[in-house]
């Protein structure tokens, strides 16, 4: 009846007009034109389906569906809306109150999965590496802690003498190094979040962890040097976009040099200790 009016309009206003039109036409069909607002809205998906063939095909299916999706929490009438709301609550908000009573194993599993996902975001290639602020939005310090302690333990296992001193030096260099490198970027006028940077620098140690384990198993100087160079390049590649994006271009080298110095010294420790 009003097709000539609605077709030339913009699609966004078209969808509104469709909704109003549906409401007007749905009034006689549901026998409650002047009733409370929630029952007619809830009946939109049902009543709009007869109008689909006569109207413009693309917009109407999405619009009533979206309307039902948004208004579902206010009007708890249709069972389909109820299931969708249940789905939202389960993955969005429902898990938070349960953390107090959940088994410890679930907590550990959740932390481990977060460590693994952060590790994937930092160390392995993925599209988010170009914007590192997004990549590590959900940072944690468990991963860096494990990687630092693991590297220190691997080095002290492979040392033949003065095992505890090796662990002490490695741990002090890595832990203090992460803090000092972050402070260095901040002092150079960079924009960086302190603990996020600590977390990232810790995750970047993961390739060197792998290299240390390989070097502990293989006792050959040539293999050690090759493995450490590869893992060193990998670690530097992982840390590069974050550190260089934090400062302005004239100071990029000043922010990156200490990071490379720390990784090179750790790599030297891995090679030197047997």
């Amino acid at each position, binding site marked *: 009846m009003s097709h000539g009016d609605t077709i030339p309009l913009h699609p966004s206003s078209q969808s509104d007009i469709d909704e109003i039109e549906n409401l007007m036409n749905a009034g006689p069909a549901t026998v409650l034109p002047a009733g409370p607002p929630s029952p007619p809205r809830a009946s939109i998906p049902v009543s709009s389906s007869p109008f689909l063939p006569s109207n413009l095909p693309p917009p109407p299916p999405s619009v009533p569906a979206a309307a039902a999706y948004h208004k579902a929490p206010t009007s708890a009438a249709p069972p389909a809306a109820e299931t969708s709301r249940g789905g939202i609550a389960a993955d969005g908000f429902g898990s938070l109150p349960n953390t107090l009573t959940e088994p410890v194993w679930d907590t550990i599993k959740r932390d481990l999965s977060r460590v693994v996902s952060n590790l994937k975001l930092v160390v392995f290639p993925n599209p988010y590496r170009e914007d590192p602020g997004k990549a590590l939005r959900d940072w944690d310090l468990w991963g860096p802690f494990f990687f630092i302690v693991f590297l220190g333990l691997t080095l002290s296992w492979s040392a033949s003498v003065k095992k505890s*001193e090796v662990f002490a030096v490695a741990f002090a260099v890595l832990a203090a190094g992460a803090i000092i490198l972050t402070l260095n970027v901040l002092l150079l*006028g960079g924009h960086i979040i302190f603990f996020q940077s600590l977390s990232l620098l810790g995750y970047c140690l993961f390739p060197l962890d792998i290299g240390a384990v390989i070097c502990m198993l293989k006792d050959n100087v040539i293999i050690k040097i090759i493995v450490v160079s590869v893992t060193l390049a990998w670690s530097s590649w992982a840390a590069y976009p974050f550190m260089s994006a934090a400062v302005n271009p004239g100071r990029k*080298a000043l922010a990156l*040099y200490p990071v490379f110095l720390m990784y090179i010294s750790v790599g030297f420790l891995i090679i*030197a200790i047997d």
Partner: protein
Amino acid sequence: MEEGYTSLPTSHLLGSVPAAVAEENTKGAAGESSSANLQIFPPANGGYQAPGSPYGGDDQAASSWRGVCSISSYSPYFNVDTDIVVGRLTSSVYPMNDFTRKIDGNPDLYGPIWISTTLVFMLAALGNCATYLMHKRNEPDTTWTFDVTFVNWAACIIYGYALAVPVAFYFLLQYFGCNASLIRLWCMWGYSLFIFVPSALLLIAPVEIFRWIIIILAGAASSWFVALNLKSYTEGSDLMVLIVSALLLQFVLALFIKIFFFV
């Protein structure tokens, strides 16, 4: 290069220790905020004032300590770009007398800190290599051992020297009535250590006479650099004793590096 840090002009830094500078700066900020207090009252945003807003006035006594602890009060000393640092490094190797002019007005602490750290790593790593090569030359069946205590020793000696000697000279200069700046002294002494970084690479060579020549050359250049800059810094006052003692100290450091790490 100082547009971003106009709140702390470097002309105030000369002749003052960093803590005093920070205190002075935050006192200035507190004075500003108290004068702004009069102008802004009543608050412009409809009378609402959040508890703990800067107009409170109770926390002004603690703000001087916050200035010492906050990072932004130290960032003027790291206000350098890559080309500036490279220029300073090259002029610290060539002992021409333009280093004082280069750090004039903008002494940085980035160079001293990372030069010292690089030197610590170099001494610990290359000292081990050099000792191993020297032993292997005398008795070919020596096995590689890594002495991790070299790291501790190198850190104590280099950081201690770069930190304590400028402080001592700062107090001596103040005692003799010369207006000195601690930051500039730290900067100068830190850059004077840079020449030991490339010379540590050459010190690996397991030839004893070559090592001695290298370290004597490096030590002479470094102590000449220190003496020259100290002389141009304390121009007008007769402090030859101090300059000679600084020169000797730097040379003793060079000899110590050779004797302790490159046995």
